[in-house]
């Protein structure tokens, strides 16, 4: 399961709402204890997808490298990636799946009419053919 602490959760929600009607994306950093992950720090990253970003996001690998370095400096781990779905549910789309990697938790934030609505976390498999839902909690959940 993955738990997101209050501070990073608010940052993620604020980022998703500020980016509306576009998708936002960022990195989640924290600690891993067995199957339990705790996000203690969120790092907003640029959505560099070319063209409309209303239903697309893309991370610069260089930014992910920077996020990993940031995590190492804090003696923490890069746990996952978050992104938003404006006016759509927090499902893991075919596009999400085909452009994912199996190493991280992927938190999807549904933003409806500019306000956060609900969220899910997903774990894609190595073949990028399916993603399992991961238990996700946050302070108000």
């Amino acid at each position, binding site marked *: 399961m993955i738990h997101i602490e209050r501070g990073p959760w608010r940052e993620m929600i604020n980022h998703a709402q500020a980016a509306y009607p576009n*998708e936002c994306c960022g990195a989640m950093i924290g600690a*891993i204890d067995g199957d339990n992950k705790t996000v203690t720090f969120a790092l907003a990253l640029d959505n560099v*997808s070319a063209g409309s970003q209303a*239903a*697309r*996001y*893309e*991370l610069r*690998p*260089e930014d*992910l*490298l920077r996020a*990993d370095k940031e*995590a*190492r400096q804090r003696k923490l*781990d*890069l*746990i996952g*990636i978050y*992104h938003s*779905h*404006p006016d*759509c549910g927090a*499902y893991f*789309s*075919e*596009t*999400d*799946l*085909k*452009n*994912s*990697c*199996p*190493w*991280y938790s*992927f938190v999807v934030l549904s933003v409806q009419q500019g306000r956060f609505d609900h969220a899910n976390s997903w774990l894609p498999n*190595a073949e*990028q053919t399916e993603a399992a839902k991961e238990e996700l909690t946050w302070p108000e959940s």
Partner: protein
Amino acid sequence: MARILIPTPLRQFAEKNDTVEVEGATVGEALTALITRFPDLKKNLYSDEGKLRSFVNVYLNDEDIRYIKKEATPLAAGDTLSIVPSIAGGAYGS
């Protein structure tokens, strides 16, 4: 001797090391040394055809090896290799 930074989720396949030092004159040789030492890493980094998986990027210090000489990129003592995935997505195409 080059240093390879292991992403958090892959450390379980590398005896929990966050950094591994390997010998190799090129990036390809260093990666081969890595998966020889930790065979369980291979399926995470390479396809069944033996090519780096499509979402795997390798950085030499802060530079993407695709823009140098890919896996033939030469290594110098003290170089650091980072393994970074490509990640994108979007709501449509569900």
